[in-house]
């Protein structure tokens, strides 16, 4: 499939693309994968903090998407469905290892990962990057999940509610707590004062 065709497909909604894939159009799946790969991988990585482990879970997540394609209902958000699978696969993987996300935090040394910058460019490097990672570790798991899904994966509050099986108000509440905890941490480090 040509580049122009792929570009044209990105204009379609995720739900339409996935319906096309179900109907036999493999290119639609590739478009969806290209569109969501970074957000899904980053989310998983933030949960497990191990590159190798995250890769396994990432692969399993998309294998499940393929296997369960007939179970997807077009009246729900594809992105929420995708992240629900990613989340449950991550939780299952962590249970298999009989470790909590907190335990895995200490394992995390993110090395040799190819990175791709977004519109904000490389404003976060070196020491600041470590600080942000450290700050996330201070959050309880459900607040960290909520924060990553909202800020890194760019899900709406409603979608996060679907993924985490809770109400939108609960999601908003968790987000608020997460923001305040991070604010406290950065204030103690003098980071917010410096930037301000």
């Amino acid at each position, binding site marked *: 499939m040509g580049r122009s065709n792929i570009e044209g497909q990105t204009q379609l909604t995720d739900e339409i693309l996935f319906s096309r*894939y179900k109907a*036999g159009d*493999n290119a639609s*799946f*590739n478009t969806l*994968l290209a569109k969501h*790969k*970074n*957000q899904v*991988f*980053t989310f998983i*990585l933030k949960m497990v903090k191990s590159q190798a482990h995250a*890769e396994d879970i*990432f*692969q399993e997540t*998309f*294998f499940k998407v*393929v*296997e369960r*394609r*007939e*179970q997807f209902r077009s009246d729900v958000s594809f992105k929420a469905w995708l992240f629900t699978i990613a989340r449950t696969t991550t939780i299952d993987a962590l249970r298999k290892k009989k470790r909590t996300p907190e335990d895995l935090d200490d394992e995390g040394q*993110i090395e040799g*990962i*190819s*990175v*791709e*910058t*977004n519109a*904000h*460019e*490389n*404003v*976060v490097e070196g020491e*600041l*990057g470590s600080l*942000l990672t450290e700050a996330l570790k201070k959050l309880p798991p459900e607040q960290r999940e909520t*924060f990553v899904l909202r*800020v*890194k994966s760019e899900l709406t509050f409603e979608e996060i509610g679907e993924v985490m099986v809770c109400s939108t108000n609960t999601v908003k*509440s968790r987000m*608020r*707590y997460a*923001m*305040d*905890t*991070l*604010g*406290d941490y*950065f*204030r103690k480090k003098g980071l*917010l004062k410096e*930037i*301000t």
Partner: protein
Amino acid sequence: MIKEPNNQTNTPLEDELILKLYQGEACTTPPEALLKTIQAQAAHSLSKPGLKIFIPRAWVVGLSFIGLVGIALGIFHWSKPNAEYEIVSPLERGRKPLFNPFQPRNNDDFVSPAVSSGFLTDEEPLGNLSAPPPLPPPGDAETLFLQAMQLQMDGNFQLASNLYRMAWMKNPEGRRQQDVLFNWALCLKQTNRTRQAIERLKLLQKINPDYPGLNEVMGNLP
């Protein structure tokens, strides 16, 4: 909103700064080889039509349950040789086969379907034979008699005896009644049920002492 202890609420500017910090953090890209593997799996999966078959779990559970109940009933049923005669309704009795395939062929052990289905017992006094059965099998007395005659001529005395019994239960009249009794007795004699044969012959003797051949047969019996 309920605040967690020791946490200071951020100002809107602080919130904005925190979000910008994390949004500016580099996103992580999975390795290209991994993406190729996933794409290959997705393409391969499309060629497998079996994945499109979806059977609701409730159906699977329901059908499994019905299957298990069926197997249990089957085991219960076939574990009893005469079960089919015991559980059928009187209306259905006439349509049951004459022979239970699980019944031993030994004459001594044989119990005719008419007996096992409750029409008659081997020990039943002959005086009660004249009483009409509750629900006789299909076919009139004459038809049954002719069929029995044919079987008797073919040497199938056991089956012929059963048909004579059924013909008798149809209350044949006149000479045919006597024919049934006589031939029935002959068949019983052939199958070594002498006592029952004698009882039928004695009854025939009461009805018609001059029945042809009756005295000769009676003379040959102990």
